[in-house]
């Protein structure tokens, strides 16, 4: 009756898992970078005085936040080509994850922008800076430093969400785990190791990001 664990098959293909892990990290990194830009732009629209823009931005955030991410991934990959927008698997996934991250970060940034003291803007104006210079040199840097902990946890979430890319056969960590599983039939071993990859990576990421947070935090 006993199931004897045998990791030999997984060991043999461990390099595939590392390759997959590499791609997962790249996907997450690209998505948080693009997502930050989308989120920032959306947040500025959300706090702007333009009604139409505000409704549009709010609509985007609501739509994305209320759609399961897997549906978004499948929609982008399968439905957009029908509408004439043809993207590769990886591009398609990064596109989706960025849009997804952008919607979440827009909310985070909106709140954080509102909590930057308005005296900083006035001090910038008083020395003759333009609105744009004030945003780029003062408001955004201060705001980003204040939301670093949220950014870290968003990044880790996105890294875990990259496993959903397996659904459209992007060769990331989960994709390779499933491949190894299918070829070796070592079900328990494969998924145990795959989980371990995620757990260890997330733990290391969290530690690294905490160091970055400390470094970048506004000194007091």
């Amino acid at each position, binding site marked *: 009756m006993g199931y004897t664990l045998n990791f030999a098959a997984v060991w043999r293909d461990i390099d595939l898992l590392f390759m997959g892990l590499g791609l997962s990290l790249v996907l997450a990194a690209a998505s948080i970078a693009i997502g930050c830009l989308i989120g920032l732009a959306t947040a500025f629209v959300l706090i702007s005085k333009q009604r139409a823009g505000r409704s549009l931005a709010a609509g985007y955030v609501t739509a994305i936040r209320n759609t399961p991410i897997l549906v978004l991934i499948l929609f982008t990959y399968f439905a957009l080509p029908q509408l004439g927008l043809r993207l590769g698997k990886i591009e398609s996934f990064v596109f989706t994850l960025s849009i997804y991250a952008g919607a979440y970060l827009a909310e985070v940034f909106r709140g954080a922008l509102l909590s930057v*003291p308005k005296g900083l803007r006035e001090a910038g104006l008083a*020395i*003759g*800076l333009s609105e744009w210079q004030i945003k780029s040199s*003062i408001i955004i*840097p201060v705001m980003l430093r204040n939301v670093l902990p949220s950014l870290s946890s968003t990044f880790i979430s996105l890294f875990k969400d990259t496993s959903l890319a397996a659904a459209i056969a992007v060769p990331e960590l989960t994709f390779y785990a499933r491949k190894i599983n299918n070829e070796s039939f070592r079900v328990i071993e494969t998924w145990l190791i795959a989980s371990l990859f995620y757990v260890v990576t997330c733990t290391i990421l969290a530690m690294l990001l905490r160091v970055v947070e400390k470094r970048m935090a506004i000194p007091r």
Partner: protein
Amino acid sequence: MPHLLEIRDLHKSFGQTEVLKGVDCAMEQGDVVCVIGSSGSGKTTMLRCINMLEDFEGGTIAIDGQQIGYETQRSQRKRRREREIARQRALTGMVFQQFNLFPHMTALANITLGLIKVKKMRREEANATAERWLDRVGLLERKGRFPGQLSGGQQQRVAIARAIAMNPKLMLFDEVTSALDPELVNEVLQVIKDLARDGMTMLLVTHEMRFAYEVSKRVIFMNEGRIGEEGDPKQMFLKPKTERLAEFLKSSSFH
């Protein structure tokens, strides 16, 4: 020769409430003028109009003959373009009650930001200028500190250096010691006195009556959006002409 600062019939409302009801005021180069008056009388608002942190609906403000914030075209009053206003704001330096230092930048970087972005100085030149002013306010050895690592008094001295390093024609101070613990007030007032002695033109809103008495060449008493009384400090504090000023002085800490 135009006045260094000339305010004529300045009117400003917030919504339905008229806060400035026709203020006239002139200053010459090297003047040190203190503005006193009870809370809500419009002192801050007047200062903020001078560097266009507030728009205003009526009257004119000119610095060195240059009309601030608005221009008159075919007898139409028009707000100037943002770029032009930004350039005009650099004619004045402003120091705020709450310091408003950029918290993510060192004391030095707080000062060099404007020098580099607005004055287009090269970094070395900006650093040298900033260090000279930090030295003047006694904080050169703290140049690498962040605002959160400085005391209130030190922060305010950095803020003064930040404003004055831009080489403005006129310095505006809005109750710059009000947010400070009492034991930190003097170090800031001392810096301002030194600037006054060096001939800096300054317009200061203050609740420090003793300081106003000692430092200013002229005192303006604001009362309900108008200048209630104005004159040299000795006459103002010792022989107020108006009932309102006498009352105000009685209720304030001047003895």
